[in-house]
């Protein structure tokens, strides 16, 4: 009985928080847009009994999914999201690895403070932090002011409302997700392994390549997925920092939903997005599993 309960809890959790909302979204994706509240048909009318249910199912179709394949915008937006996510993941890794490495090498008494500093930004609103980047990156922003007063540039750089600003925003926002798993892998790394590598003829640098990198691989993979997966569907950063040319599926979804009030198409976009995300999520789970096995 107790066992059954223990097994049931996560499944009920999954059912309530994932499966039920997903089925609702899927249902809307199979409906048609309509000027009404809610803005789609059919709606399920249980008071009509069996006939109502039959009418409801008869009203569902795959029209919206077909529509997504007909208009270039959608597949281009998916592709562009994947590209932006991949590029920003790469830069996040480039910035995050040295930070994690530095933290892992720092004296023991410093580490809690450094960890705190990494986590600290989460305690202020994400939205405010992205807005403050607008203040930094805009043409009259702090960055341009500093660069111009130092005489490095004469004309202000145009960063805000470009893809560059989106990359900066994503790297900034998701950096902790990259740092923490890499840090935890590096922290576990036994310093005597590096000494052994040197003892056997490695230079400092080759010891890093041959020992440190392979032994932090699981952390790197975990960090990359933790950045890549949420970035694909990212909406706030591209819409605040990106320009009209920045094409991301999250933005498209938002516009379908709120500007066009086309809930069924927006839901179809969301369903496809989820299907795209399932692949990296499964790969991520596999990596975690492997890590646990290696640790155990």
């Amino acid at each position, binding site marked *: 009985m107790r066992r059954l309960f223990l097994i049931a809890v996560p499944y009920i959790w999954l059912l309530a928080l994932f499966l039920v909302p997903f089925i609702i979204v899927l249902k809307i994706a199979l409906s048609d847009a309509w000027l009404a509240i809610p803005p789609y048909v059919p709606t399920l009318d249980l008071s009509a009994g069996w006939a109502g249910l039959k009418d409801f199912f008869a009203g569902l179709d795959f029209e919206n999914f077909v529509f997504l394949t007909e208009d270039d915008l959608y597949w281009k937006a998916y592709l562009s999201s994947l590209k932006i996510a991949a590029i920003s993941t790469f830069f996040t890794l480039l910035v995050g690895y040295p930070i994690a490495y530095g933290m892992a090498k720092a004296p023991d008494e410093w580490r809690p403070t450094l960890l705190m500093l990494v986590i600290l930004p989460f305690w202020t609103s994400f939205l405010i932090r992205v807005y403050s980047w607008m203040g930094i990156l805009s043409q009259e922003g702090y960055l341009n002011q500093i660069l111009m007063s130092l005489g490095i540039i004469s004309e202000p750089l145009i960063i805000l409302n470009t893809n560059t600003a989106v990359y900066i925003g994503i790297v900034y926002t998701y950096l902790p997700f990259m740092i923490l798993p890499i840090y935890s892998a590096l922290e576990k790394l*036994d310093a*005597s*392994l590096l*000494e*052994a*590598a*040197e*003892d*056997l*003829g*490695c*230079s400092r640098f*080759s010891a890093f390549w*041959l*020992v440190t990198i*392979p*032994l932090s*691989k699981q952390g790197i993979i975990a960090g990359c997925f933790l950045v890549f997966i949420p970035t694909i569907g990212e909406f706030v950063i591209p819409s605040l920092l990106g320009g009209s040319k920045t094409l991301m599926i999250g933005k498209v979804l938002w516009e379908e939903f709120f500007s066009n009030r086309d809930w069924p198409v927006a839901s179809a976009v969301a369903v496809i997005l989820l299907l795209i995300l399932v692949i990296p999520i499964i790969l991520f789970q596999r990596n975690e599993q492997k890590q646990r096995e*290696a640790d155990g």
Partner: protein
Amino acid sequence: MPQDVFAPWLDPDAKPIIQFKNVTKRFGDFIAIDDLTIDIYEREFFALLGPSGCGKTTMMRMLAGFETPTEGNILLSGQDMAPVPPNKRAVNMMFQSYALFPHLSVWENIAFGLRRDGMPKDEMAARVDEMLRLTRLEKFARRKPHQISGGQRQRVALARSLAKAPKLLLLDEPLGALDKKLRQETQFELMDIQEKTGTTFVIVTHDQEEAMTVASRVAVMDHGKIVQVATPAEIYETPNSTYVADFIGDVNLIEGKAGEKEGDKLSISWAEGQPDIIGTPQTSFDKGQTIHFAIRPEKVSITHDKPTNPVAFRGKVLDIAYLGNLSTYHVELPNGQIIKAQTANNRRISRRGFTWEDKVWVSWTDTAGVLLEN
């Protein structure tokens, strides 16, 4: 001394492979190695023995190049090692924790150092296989370190550090994690390998039996200093201080005052109402000077009847420690002093001569013990 005995330290022309010259190592204010000078010779199996924290690992790490001496010089084959980084030294170390690379197979772990030297593929494979054979690991070549037992891991670490055929192999408590039986087997294996390869071994241990078993010479350390360096037999038979006598094996220590010298014998008065102890001093003592008399339990005889030995005391059996092959009797003298006497059990228990509360004699010859100043 016969010619075939291995004792390069007695040969004034022998060139040491390692020389520590007034080496001091400080960590902040803490002195880990204190003005240490020592020569170690080629093909030696040199053991560093001492309690935890006395600076053994620090010495090894300085030899391997992971620490630099605060003062003094370390020479390897006559060359000052200070500017030479660890990866350029003809020294390999077997780490206390083994430090096997968890992401590489046993085979790759052993090949690691050879690859760094750019050894040709077939030559490398042959060398790795040779090492696997030497350490009897052929069957485990493809396994990862976490898939083999502690003893096998330790052999991988040994094979890896031997693979590059270093001039000098450093072993930091290599057998610490093994149980007693495996430990003893491995000690003989180590000696075998050392003989076969002709490598100079420096081994760190805090187990005195291990040091005695494997070493050509033993250095007993205390607080960053070497207290005595000698062959295992010399260390055991003629320790130079009570510290060494007490550290190596079991010993009876009796404090007394130097009395009259008669020929090469010296009498030591040590307790009211007890006859003097007669000993044979190696150094001179002034009359009235404090002397510590040290005698090993197996050199003390225990008898029912008054013995003919020149030093004999009457006492009663307080305790018997039965060790199977040996028994140690704790005999209490009338003044409260306890003398440990050890005898071989070459008879069955039922035929054994002594039991608790027996009145017995403990005795020894006048050359059986050593007289120490401190």
